[in-house]
């Protein structure tokens, strides 16, 4: 009998506990009507703005990019220490997606639905971010400054909440091909590209300059397979002299290293996404890298010149707020993203809403810190439509002074217009 009562009591207790748990989750699934001002600005309180990102902290792309979010975080710490933006501190939630689109979908839903972030900033990767593009726009979450050069982000009609950060890959492909033609007109130009939109769009850009079929050999690699011997071998056999690279940092190093092992030393022209010299040194080693990468050509659109004022400020922030982590292109990149977001947030006013933030960027008034003006506007969600050419000489990577912009389908040589540093690098601070 006692057993019976005990069982019964236990059942009742379990039922009660389950009911309590369910009630705790009760945050009603009913869609919002959008009239409540608090709902127009989730993640915003009187003194904080919470935003989130998905980054490859583990997995195949981690070694090349995991330092970006740390740099952005350091920049936000610097801003917060100096009073924040419009009196609000920026809280930055970084989630690891391992460069795996399936994981990206889960962590981004977590950020939007559980952590209720105001916006997603600088989600990294073409394949990864593509998988949440629809989701973020359906939920009207500002999807700012995506860390990829895919042209998918620049579709204001279809994806009004998404804005790019990188110069797009068509622009980069065209600029690299143009530089190849200008420097060595008779060379055999080939391309090694990632097996997704990244590769496709660099090919598209290069073919704008070289004409259809102008690339003597196009090889593709897949991120999940860490061996490019077959691809490099095919390029060597095809007699390629200038190899354009649409590769992430890890695979740039892999391509250069594999070619060296095969005794093959072509010229390498890399997209900015995979052309950061200090990061490549990390892969290839201090002793080999300067030799293998002498003359290595890449593109950039951010103020990373070793003697620039932005670099000086970012170095200082890096030392103070990032434990003096190695200073490289990713550091400049991460902090520039932070700067642009801070500028957008400042422009969104004292009571930022999601729509207000998007409007502030679409207004075309943002300046950023690039070497060319930003292209944001009501009908353009692309950040940079031009890039400067950089090369590595004696272990130092810097601009050579040639800058290209894509105007329609034509590549034009333009003058760089670097943005001067103002207000200690904190937007809105006079």
């Amino acid at each position, binding site marked *: 009998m006692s057993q019976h009562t005990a069982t019964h009591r236990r059942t009742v207790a379990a039922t009660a506990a389950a009911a309590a748990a369910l009630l705790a989750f009760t945050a009603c699934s009913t869609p919002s009507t959008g009239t409540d001002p608090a709902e127009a600005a989730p993640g915003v309180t009187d003194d904080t703005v919470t935003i989130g990102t998905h980054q490859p902290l583990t997995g195949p792309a981690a070694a090349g990019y995991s330092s970006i979010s740390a740099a952005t975080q350091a920049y936000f710490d610097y801003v917060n220490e100096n009073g924040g933006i419009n009196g609000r501190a920026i809280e930055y939630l970084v989630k690891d997606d391992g460069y*795996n689109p399936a994981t990206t979908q889960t962590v981004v839903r977590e950020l939007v639905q559980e952590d209720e972030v105001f916006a997603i900033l600088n989600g990294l990767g073409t394949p990864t971010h593509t998988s949440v593009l629809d989701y973020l726009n359906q939920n009207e979450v500002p999807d700012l400054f995506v860390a990829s050069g895919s042209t998918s982000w620049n579709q204001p009609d279809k994806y009004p909440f998404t804005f790019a950060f990188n110069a797009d890959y068509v622009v980069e492909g065209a600029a690299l091909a143009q530089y190849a033609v200008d420097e060595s007109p008779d060379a055999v130009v080939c391309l090694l590209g990632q097996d997704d939109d990244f590769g496709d769009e660099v090919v598209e850009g290069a073919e704008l300059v070289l004409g259809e079929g102008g690339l003597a050999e196009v090889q593709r690699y897949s991120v999940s397979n860490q061996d490019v011997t077959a691809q490099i071998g095919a390029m060597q056999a095809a007699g390629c002299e200038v190899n354009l690279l649409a590769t992430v940092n890890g695979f740039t190093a892999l391509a250069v290293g594999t070619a060296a092992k095969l005794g093959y030393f072509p010229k390498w022209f890399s997209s900015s996404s995979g052309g950061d010299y200090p990061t490549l040194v990390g892969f290839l080693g201090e002793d080999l890298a300067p030799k293998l990468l002498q003359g290595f050509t890449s593109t950039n659109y951010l103020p990373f010149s070793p003697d620039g004022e932005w670099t000086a400020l970012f170095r200082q922030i890096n030392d103070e707020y990032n434990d003096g982590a190695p200073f490289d292109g990713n550091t400049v990149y991460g902090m520039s993203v932070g700067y642009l977001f801070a500028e957008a947030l400042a422009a969104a006013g004292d009571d930022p809403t999601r729509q207000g933030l998007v409007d502030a960027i679409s207004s075309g008034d943002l300046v950023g810190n690039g070497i060319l003006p930003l292209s944001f506007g009501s009908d353009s969600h692309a950040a940079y439509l031009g890039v400067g050419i950089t090369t590595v000489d004696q272990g130092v990577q810097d601009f050579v002074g040639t800058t290209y912009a894509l105007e329609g389908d034509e590549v034009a040589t333009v003058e760089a217009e670097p943005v001067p540093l103002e207000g200690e690098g904190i937007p809105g601070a006079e």
Partner: protein
Amino acid sequence: MSPRILPGLTGTPRLLVTAAALTVLAIGGTFLLDPYRNYQLALVAAYFCATAGLTLLIGLSGQLSLGHAALMAAGGYGYALTANALTESGIDGVPRFLVSLVVAVVAAGLLGLLLGLAGARLSGPYLAGVTLALVIALPAITSVFSGVFRGDQGVQIAYDGVPEALRLIIAVEQWQAWVAILVTAIVVTGLAVIRRGRLGLRMRAVHGDETSARLNGVPAGRVKVAAFTASAVSAGAGGAILCFVTQSVSPGAYTLAFSLLLVVAVVVGGLGSIGGAAVGAVVVVLLPWLIGTAIGAFDLPTELEQRLSGNLGVLVFGALLIVVTAVWPGGLAGALRRRRRRENRMLRADQMPPAEPRDSRPAEPAIPASPASHPISTEPER
């Protein structure tokens, strides 16, 4: 599952009523959950399809598949490619969903049939090896045929919104959970019918002793192939649901680790038990999330946190597997069943002399003995 509900019903009708009741309960439950929980519920439903099929395959027919993720992927790609083709020809809404789902299930079923044909000639580790090779080859297949499968990036599909009539009542995650629950209910009920029917009995016979089964006229080869196909069909449905919920399918979602996780899930849940498969699906979805939340709660150094976030899950799954097999060899479902039986026995001992109300059903002894309704117990066989 609930022995005291509707004592008049037995056999398949009772199974159907139970299934319908559970489905209604699950759909009602979505009203209590916030969107993220509903998203997780939809994932649980999708994984439940796969684990239910897998538990049937391993627990009943005794064939070990380590490659169920590949069968889910076949369903996912089947769904995505068909949905995209239909979108291009201007078809959308319910017809697009249904046609794509059917193609997904057929694609996975065909792959399962092929594997099953090989499986009937292989056994034990050799079969496991074949299925293992399939899941390892998946990223290579998608990148070699990247024109169709779009490499690592995978295939994205158009979005199915909430139907107009329901738009004011439910959010999109809840709608997706409903669809997932309905499809899963149909698939799993089908598996439960197979499990308690003739085919289920034959699977057990083949598993128990293949030679005696053959001597008794059971076509062992055909039974094994049928088991593999049924299990592949349900995995394909799971992959299709996953694709419907996330609007994409990519090889990164169906890795070897995930495939092994499915096996861990059904072993932890209890081999051969549908309820155990449900528990396993919940564990697969919630455990990594719980671990992530727990890691986030401690203020760990960033580097340590990064190291832990990817790897701790695998460690915990491994530990869970060892603990469960050591303590409850029948899995969580087996442990629950045993406890209930023990309590029933004690209850009866308390109520001596034998309870009068039960006299109306003289055929019901202390332990349900009808072979079809007797849950498969794997413990004594191991």
